[in-house]
């Protein structure tokens, strides 16, 4: 049994799985159910001084093929319950689950005294940390909060500073992905004194348009608005942003990873790419709190099988393998090889290569068996992976390294060498 306990900027939790600030953490009833189910922590649905008004409907999902909820979006705002009610329930949760991480997500008008007031109020009920919601892309942003702050590094820095002036618990700054370069706001958070960052918040999205009514999905009495996109479909975007922050020395503070984490496997990827813990929402909304059982069990078994005693030992282990294109080895070559024993002859690899890649997979009629075979012309294969990606039977197409007999050479090294030789090249 591996040690699954984590510590993120001083906040401790029995395992890395927290519920993100969202509908599942709207009330004490829900958070207690979650802790009973095994979640290690919860970021309470964003608190503010005055309750907001929500609309219906609020949620929409992207289904792909038979897979439901590949993506999800919402136009729900922060908590619509009075602050004192939330605080009373938070105190109760903390009393009953003292070892679990309870974080207060906060959002108030961009005024120093408003931030001071709410920080003092939530810390008085015994929360383990604060998360500043500079990410919400809809509704609150129109009022100068949420991502309206998160899109301006100066505002992030300033409001983080205001919080840090009075905060006694660790401060996590939650970042919006709706910007050009996540590192700029991450650095600003650190400059403002943040103890950690969490990312990503949801991405601006329009889930769909109804083909019969021609209305946006979802719509509120005939009108729609952009909503925050999340769920499995956003994972690659989130993972990239986490990795970008993790490898930036100017950021340099712990990361709480968020974005499409649905299984223990996703969590491991975020941990390897530099997150010290993860936050989950859509998966819990889709399947209920009980999914955490497999998350914990799967992570534990994975660590045991790898002979790793503590989950903290894998944090950031892949960060140094993530770099810029210019640092990739131009002299590394792989080609596709098809295992004919496993091939079921759907010929998807052939048509993918023929229509969309480099025309190097032929269909050949075997003279002896009179059966059709797909054969790679290795000399023409560019190693793009498309055939392997479209192949429905795992392990049938393998990408095999082919030594080309040249030492490793990156584009950066090549350009440096070329300029040293005084030659001029525009080759990319």
């Amino acid at each position: 049994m591996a040690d699954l306990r984590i510590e993120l900027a001083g906040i401790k939790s029995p395992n890395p799985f927290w519920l993100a600030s969202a509908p599942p953490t709207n009330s004490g009833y829900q958070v207690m159910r979650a802790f009973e189910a095994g979640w290690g922590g919860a970021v309470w649905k964003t608190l503010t001084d005055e309750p907001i008004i929500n609309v219906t409907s609020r949620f929409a999902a992207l289904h792909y093929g038979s897979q439901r909820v590949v993506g999800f979006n919402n136009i729900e705002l922060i908590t619509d319950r009075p602050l004192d009610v939330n605080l009373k329930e938070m105190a109760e949760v903390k009393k009953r689950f003292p070892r679990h991480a309870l974080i207060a997500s906060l959002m108030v008008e961009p005024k120093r005294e408003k931030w001071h007031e709410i920080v003092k109020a939530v810390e008085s009920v015994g929360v383990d940390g604060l998360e500043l919601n500079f990410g919400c892309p809809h509704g609150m942003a129109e009022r100068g909060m949420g991502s309206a702050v998160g899109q301006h590094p100066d505002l992030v820095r300033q409001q983080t500073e205001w919080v840090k002036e009075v905060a006694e618990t660790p401060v996590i700054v939650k970042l919006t992905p709706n910007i050009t370069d996540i590192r700029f706001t991450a650095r600003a958070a650190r400059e403002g004194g943040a103890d950690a960052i969490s990312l990503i918040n949801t991405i601006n999205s329009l889930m769909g348009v109804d083909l019969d009514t021609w209305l946006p999905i979802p719509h509120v009495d005939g009108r729609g608005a952009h909503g925050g996109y999340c769920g499995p479909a956003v994972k690659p975007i989130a993972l990239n942003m986490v990795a970008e922050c993790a490898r930036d020395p100017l950021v340099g503070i712990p990361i709480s990873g968020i974005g499409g984490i649905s299984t223990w496997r996703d969590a491991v990827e975020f941990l390897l790419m530099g997150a010290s813990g993860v936050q989950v929402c859509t998966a819990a909304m889709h399947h209920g709190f009980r999914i955490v059982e497999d998350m914990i069990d799967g992570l534990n078994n994975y660590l045991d099988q790898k002979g790793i005693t503590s989950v903290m030992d894998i944090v950031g282990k892949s960060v140094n393998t993530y770099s810029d294109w210019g640092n990739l080895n131009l002299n590394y070559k792989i080609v596709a090889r098809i295992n004919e024993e496993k091939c079921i002859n759907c010929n998807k690899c052939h048509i993918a290569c023929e229509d969309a890649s480099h025309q190097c997979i032929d269909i050949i009629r075997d003279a002896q068996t009179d059966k059709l075979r797909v054969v790679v012309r290795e000399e023409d294969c560019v190693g793009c992976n498309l055939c392997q990606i479209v192949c429905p039977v795992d392990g049938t197409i393998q990408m095999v390294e082919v030594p080309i007999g040249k030492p490793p050479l990156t584009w950066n090294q090549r350009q440096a060498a070329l300029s040293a030789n005084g030659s001029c090249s525009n080759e990319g």
Partner: protein
Amino acid sequence: MAREQAFIPEKDLYANFQEVVPPLKPKEAIDEANRCLFCYDAPCIKACPTGIDIPSFIKKIATGNLYGSAKTIMESNPVGASCARVCPTSELCEGACVLNDASRPIRIGQLQRHATDWAIRNQAVLFQSGEPNGRKVAIVGAGPAGLSAARELARLGYEVTVYEAKEKAGGLNTYGIVSFRLPQEIPLWEAEQVESLGVCFRYGVKVGVDIPAQELVDRYDSVLLAVGMGPVPRLGIEGEDLEGVWEAISFIEDTKTKTLTTDLTGKKVAVIGAGNTAIDAATCSVRLGAEKVQIFYRRTQKEMTAYDFEYEFAKQDGVEFRWKVAPKRILGTGGKVTGLELIRMELGEPDEKGRRRPIPIPDSEFIVEVDYVIKAIGQERQLSLIDAFGLVHRNGVPVVEEGTYRTSRANVFAAGDCIFEVGKTDAMVVEAAEQGKRAAYAIHNALEEKHRSH
């Protein structure tokens, strides 16, 4: 399924004749459609005699384009709704599915039914007739081959008249395949589709009896013979004219066209033969309340022509199979069947078709007590009709040119079961549909050529 009680309420009888295979539920269809790999150059297409673009029609189900899906199916196979129910899919499309090797094959037949059922329910108009080209074609027989040819010719602009001896179109699909496998409304919808293209159907007209064959040859630019096969031949044994000796095809037809009989309730039925029609007769008997239904076949399970799934279905219905026995005499008292004398057989050398010839074992006769004997030993050829057209034939099978279905007589073509010969093609609905299509194109080509040369 076999029943003990002697009396069955009529509503139960009708329930027994409802379609046995339930349709896919909408979500089931979407799930199944999404399992399809959308193979390039898919083997299922090649395994379908009519060459339906199966991955394409399945993809269309997955995207909610059911109109397009049904059209893709019916485009290649004008009787695609019937075939969705009666094709031996495990031997054709589903048998060729690449997922046989990786998981389990896509339920192509059921998906085909899902799409075509949608078209039936929504009264979809799938095809339009072509610009009239001034030429006329007569088709004899409104079964799968005839309907298929009529549809294609109408789309090419021909004025098509179909002569059908029965009161309705569809041939064996309408009259000869049990309701619980293929309800009549399915082939009748397919016929309506053809009719909606302006094809004229002359029902209840027997060519060669009500109208001379020569008249068709004279009045039309081309004639297509798509008459299927005739009645079940006689066994040629004693007692065959007793009351209670039936032939399978009319017996099945009665269950599809008349009030269901209660005559079989609690009775013992012997079915002679082991083809799909024999199975249909046997399972109908069970569903009509027969107490004991036995199939007698002179060869073994290995040589029987019934599809495996039909055989399994019959066994589940409680039909008993008796191999290597042949009927010798039908016994009766007071003009009614009381028993069947059988003789045991053994298999000798293979015959010219490669099937081992059954040989009677001397002195092995025995008698079984039965109330009804149903003959299902194949079908006769429509020799008088073939003679009426003056066609060269081989044992009642018109000789046709390979690929064009042209008979020995100019402008007379033949397709479908009437040209079926063991060992050459399979007598399947889907094969008849394909032959009808091809014959239509051959007729078109021949008339175009004639037009050009004038």
